[in-house]
């Protein structure tokens, strides 16, 4: 699968802008959403190849966003990597049950995030 478009969803601008800068430098087209509703809107609009999704989001949390996207025919094919500070096992289970393709616990170094994205490329 070729990954060209990435949607970064995080309410922390330092994180989202850093990720956007680094990923754009690597040649990806990066879109940013700061809340859950914006995330859903942009997902339908842009149809990214991968979504980096934080859980703790204003307006709509990441779990719900993931559930909605994975149930909708138009967006269920999009790979979702969850990136969250929530690290309890039940929370992780929640995320995976919601349909996330991968659950990463913060803090994660950028090289590790990139590895995960590239793993989807080789699939």
């Amino acid at each position: 699968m070729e990954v060209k478009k990435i949607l970064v969803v995080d309410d922390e601008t330092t994180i989202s802008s850093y990720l956007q800068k680094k990923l754009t430098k690597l040649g990806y087209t990066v879109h940013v959403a700061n809340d859950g509703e914006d995330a859903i809107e942009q997902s339908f609009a842009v149809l990214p190849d991968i979504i980096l999704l934080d859980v703790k989001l204003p307006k709509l949390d990441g779990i719900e966003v993931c559930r909605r996207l994975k149930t909708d025919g138009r967006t269920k094919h999009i790979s979702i990597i969850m990136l969250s500070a929530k690290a309890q096992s039940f929370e992780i289970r929640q995320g995976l049950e919601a349909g996330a393709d991968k659950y990463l616990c913060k803090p994660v170094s950028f090289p590790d995030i990139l590895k995960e994205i590239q793993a989807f490329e080789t699939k």
Partner: protein
Amino acid sequence: MATDNIKKGEQQRRMLQEYIFNLEDAQEKAGELAVAHEKLKRSQDFLTAVIGSTTHGICLVKNHTFIWCNNAFTDILGWNQEDMIGRKTSILFHDDEEHTDIDRIIYDNSRKDRTVTFEYDFLHKDGHRVSCMVKGRPQDEHDLSKGYVFSVTDFTDLKNTETALKDSYKDLEGRTNDLLKTNMELSREIKEHKKTEDKLNKYRGHLEELVMKRTTELKQTNKKLQQEISERRQQEEALNKLEEMESSILSAIPHAVIGLKERITIFANDSVEDVFGWEPEELIGKSTRTLYRTDEDYEQLGINLYKVLAKQKVHNLEVPCRRKDGRDIICRLNVSRIGTSLTDKQIVVMYEDITDIKRVENALRESEEKYRNIFENTLEGILQAAPDGRILSANPALVRLYKAASFYELVNEVKDFGKLFVDLMRCEEFKRLLVEQGMVKDFEAQLYCKDKDVCWVSINARSVLDESGKIVFYEGTLQDISEHKKLESQLFQSQKMEAIGTLAGGVAHDINNILMGIQGYASLALFNLNNSHPNYEKLKSIEELVKSGADLTKQLLGFARAAVFDVK
């Protein structure tokens, strides 16, 4: 409590994530900075090298004070770096007026156009003027207080060159004017020349045609000449070969070969020495009279020879000649006329010394005569026959033997000599002996003559072989021994008779004795008998018979004596 811890943990993780990203970012920036620093250092080093090595003077001026300058700048103006830095720029000017002028140029220009360029003769430390080209600009476009950077180039040499160039340009101008004048004249001349050229071109074209024609002609002539030359060369070669061959032939011919013109020798081969004793060189150029015995011989020969040669090309004849040593020889001359007519009396004569041959011929003829006489006149028949029996030759004696009238009659009647043998076995024997022994001696046989007469002959013959041993013909002598044979048989007959006679005599004598004996006994028996005795008549008969017997033996004896002489 637990939930608080969980929430605290979450919070801490969020913060950690931020820290991590910031750290990564800072690391990246540091890396980039190091790279940039490295690049900067390299640029600085490069810049230092450039500035240090350039021949252009570079200086940095701020508030009319030299802040920095390179070595080239100080070289141009005679100062050294330590003296220059910190000094006022007025040191380069003769007076303040000049300084102000330049100032105005720089600052006026710097307001309109960032870069200023001007020429100025600065004051060297030594006091003389240095012609320089100056290029300057503010260090920072937006902040003029930071000062100006100037680039100064000493173009004193350039100026001198410029002056020299201006002078030579003036000179050139003068020359150009002269040239223009000359050019105009030349143009005129050229026009005239053009007219002449056109005329020439016309003639040249014509000339070229002629030349081409002539060249073609010459080429053809040349080709012909080449052909002739090669032909001539071939002919020469052929001639040389012929001459060589001629020389070889002449040398090989064992007879003297002399070429004559008007009876003077023009060439002679080496063999003239063998034949005449003269060397060829001794004869050349001289008359051929030297080769003959007398003037008469010479003259007569000439008359006869040239008369014949006038009509035919070759002639041969035998002529007596004389050698250098005076010995006379006979030569056969083979004469050939050179050419179709006798102009210059050009002939070639081959002299063959036939003296010995002639002598031999004569001897041969004589011996032939002798043998012919023998052949013709001998009483013995001489015969030559081919292996198949054909008679090749027969002398008169043989013809007579056969009782033919002539040789031709003999040959016509006798196709195979072998068939003349009366006894064919004898013929076979004859042939066998000839083949085995190659000869027969005193071979006696009976042959048929003409009209079926028979004669006895004694043959001595041999077979003549060729080189390969094959019998070519038989030859031999036949002697008629018919008489001999008759006498022989008569003798034989008389001898036989004599022998019989002797025998008869002996027998008769013995019988007589026997008869006498019988008579005796008969007489004795009768002595005491009379005729009445029964045996008296018988005994008387015996006496009568004895008498008859005695008569018989007497006759026989008489015959025996006579037989010795009576040969029929």
